[in-house]
């Protein structure tokens, strides 16, 4: 690596700054599942030059990715695992329990939250998960901190023998700024076999490990106290910011006459002493955090004296949705800066839609035709481009809840007596979380029809390769116990439409588990340079 060239400032996304930070922290392996706004972290590492000694892999889902990362840490080397906020729900089991083992090599989980739900089904706040697991959480305020804190996270993980959660939000993950890297650290050597009693969470060991984790809490708190940035100025108002809220406050400071006192939190657990010092200094507090009122809620139990606290809980800041400079300006009581005049013209909305030539469009048309004449068919769908099948002109699906839910929900509806019950799921979503509910359905001979929309890729997040080539899907499905007579692979195209309609119609009338795979490559993926695709 030629240090001088690599250490020049780079104009990169917050996500890419995390990736570069991990690379320069000497990470040995990085795992994840694609999900907006976290995808670019692993994509950057996949493209990184000189990565022959670095293992980077998309995994079946966030849980398997997390478990692989724990294994890397167990043998003394550094691991990064990345996911979007709802992915941490999938990985919650290994995540919570990884706080109880004796982390060896630095274990960092980078989670990108999506306040405002730009591309997600909820806006849950991952800081609660870090608190739940009783581990450190770092929340960068800008791209440089995303780089610096990722490097710091690996060191902290090894110092405290705990996983560290890096919390990003969309507006940092997907915003570019100049980042100045520092000299890279080499990878750690392979370690010795760890003490099995620190890794085998039998109740006797788990109780000891839990006590040990609780004993380490004051040390974690001492670390976050030392990382807190407190500036005691005006006694009228004290503002607490976390993460990128700091920037929105800074945007307005030149417009405020009496500069408020300010505590910025980028490291959790919440620095209690710093909060109390601020509270003792001011008449009123305002809490600005992108996401849930995490600090604000805890604050109410931490203060020694009654100080009015404003934020999302009292409506000073909207209870939901992301922060932006204007939301923060209003919370500070500053006037909004208005443009001169807006013309009175009605603009049409422009929601996202399936691409022209998308194979899913053909599949949806076939499904709609096959269901014609049926009374109230139930179509449970899933997470992916094909969720857009909910919108006109298709209006073909009735649900989208979480990865893999389509099959489980259709099975439940069938058990409850609803006919026909249909699940529509993409190939990658099926591999992520659809195989287990299909196994359930087969075991109980549930009366449902599964339509797998196989476009050979993880399309919504930018055409990442799926874990197995499409040709192998049928053997996986047969392996789960689906009757080969009720498993069909058909092409999703105008030309093959009649066959697809007839097959779906036939299987809708079969009282048992049927799977129809409608297959054609994503047109966006097909346009891409084949050299970019990795199996």
């Amino acid at each position: 690596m030629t240090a001088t060239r690599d250490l020049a400032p780079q104009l990169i996304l917050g996500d890419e700054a995390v990736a570069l930070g991990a690379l320069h922290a000497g990470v040995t392996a990085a795992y994840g599942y694609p999900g907006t706004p976290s995808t670019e972290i692993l994509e950057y590492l996949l493209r990184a030059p000189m990565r022959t000694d670095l293992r980077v892999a998309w995994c079946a889902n966030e849980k398997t990715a997390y478990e692989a990362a724990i294994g890397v840490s167990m043998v003394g080397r550094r691991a990064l695992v990345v996911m979007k906020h709802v992915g941490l729900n999938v990985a919650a089991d290994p995540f919570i329990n990884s706080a109880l083992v004796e982390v060896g090599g630095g274990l960092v989980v980078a989670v990108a939250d999506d306040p405002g739900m730009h591309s997600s089904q909820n806006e849950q706040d991952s800081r609660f998960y870090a608190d739940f697991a009783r581990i450190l959480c770092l929340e960068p305020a800008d791209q440089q901190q995303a780089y610096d804190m990722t490097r710091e996270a690996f060191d902290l993980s090894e110092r405290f023998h705990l996983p560290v959660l890096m919390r990003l939000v969309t507006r940092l993950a997907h915003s570019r700024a100049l980042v100045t890297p520092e000299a890279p650290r080499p990878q750690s050597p392979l370690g010795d076999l760890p003490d099995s009693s620190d890794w085998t969470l039998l109740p006797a060991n788990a109780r000891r490990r839990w006590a040990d984790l609780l004993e380490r809490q004051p040390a974690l708190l001492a670390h976050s106290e030392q990382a807190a940035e407190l500036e005691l100025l005006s006694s009228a108002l004290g503002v607490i910011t976390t993460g990128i809220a700091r920037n929105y406050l800074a945007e307005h400071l030149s417009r405020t006459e009496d500069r408020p006192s300010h505590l910025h939190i980028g490291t959790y657990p919440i620095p209690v002493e710093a909060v109390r010092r601020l509270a003792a200094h001011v008449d009123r507090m305002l809490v600005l955090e992108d996401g849930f009122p995490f600090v604000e809620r805890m604050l109410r139990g931490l203060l020694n004296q009654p100080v009015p606290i404003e934020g999302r809980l009292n409506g000073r800041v909207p209870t939901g949705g992301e922060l932006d400079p204007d939301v923060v300006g209003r919370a500070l009581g500053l006037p909004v800066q208005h443009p001169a005049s807006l013309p009175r013209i009605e603009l049409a909305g422009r929601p996202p839609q399936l691409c022209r030539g998308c194979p899913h469009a053909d599949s949806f048309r076939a499904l709609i035709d096959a269901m014609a004449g049926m009374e109230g068919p139930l179509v449970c769908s899933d997470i992916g481009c094909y969720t857009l099948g909910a919108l006109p002109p298709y209006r073909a699906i009735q649900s989208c809840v979480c990865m893999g839910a389509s099959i489980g929900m259709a099975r439940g509806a069938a058990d409850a007596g609803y006919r026909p019950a249909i699940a529509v799921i993409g190939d990658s979503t099926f591999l992520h979380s659809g195989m287990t509910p299909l196994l359930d359905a087969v075991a109980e001979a549930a009366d449902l029809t599964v339509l797998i929309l196989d476009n050979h890729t993880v399309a919504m997040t930018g055409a990442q390769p799926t874990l197995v080539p499409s040709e192998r899907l049928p053997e996986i499905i047969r392996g789960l116990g689906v009757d080969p007579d009720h498993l069909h692979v058909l092409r999703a195209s105008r030309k093959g439409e009649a066959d697809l309609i007839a097959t779906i119609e036939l299987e809708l009338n079969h009282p048992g588990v049927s799977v129809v795979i409608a297959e054609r490559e994503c047109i966006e993926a097909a346009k891409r340079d084949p050299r970019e695709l990795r199996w």
Partner: protein
Amino acid sequence: MKVDSIVAGVGGQGVLSVAAVIAGATARLGWQVKQSEVHGMAQRGGAVVAHLRMAEGPIHSDLIPRGTADLILSLEPMESLRYLEYLSPMGTVATAVEPVRNIDDYPDLDLLLEAISNLPSSILVEATALARRAGNGKAANMVMVGAVAHLLPAGKPSLAAEIRRAFGARGDNVLDANLEAFRLGCSLGTGTT
């Protein structure tokens, strides 16, 4: 000095390429840059917007406060009006005039163009037509970069160099069309109405 710009368009038009080219050239000047983008679901043929902030000094927020943007640079006429609340009273709207009608209820184009012309400062560009003349209709986005080059901190040679970096790997035809599209955009001069 600062230039805050909203870059708007429809998914697939190359909004992010416009933002990347301008941001890259500006960063090489030694300016600070923050460029907030939209990825994921919104990119599928929907409205796409990037906030591009450029300043000689530090930039705090990744997002531009409403009423303060110096420029709205749009690749599509209706999209140029969607973010008007961000524009400062002294700001300019520059847009391609060719509509993307991938929705049923697209408004009357003449009314749209009239509304844009009536803004205090606007630049209307037949970007797709010029891009076709440059050899590739898809290079309309680079026509628009050229059309606002006089409002940007990076000079035309730096922008052209950035276009070479951005499109160099896609072959000579694509690169040449984009450079020519940029040049045709620049040649419109400072046609601010």
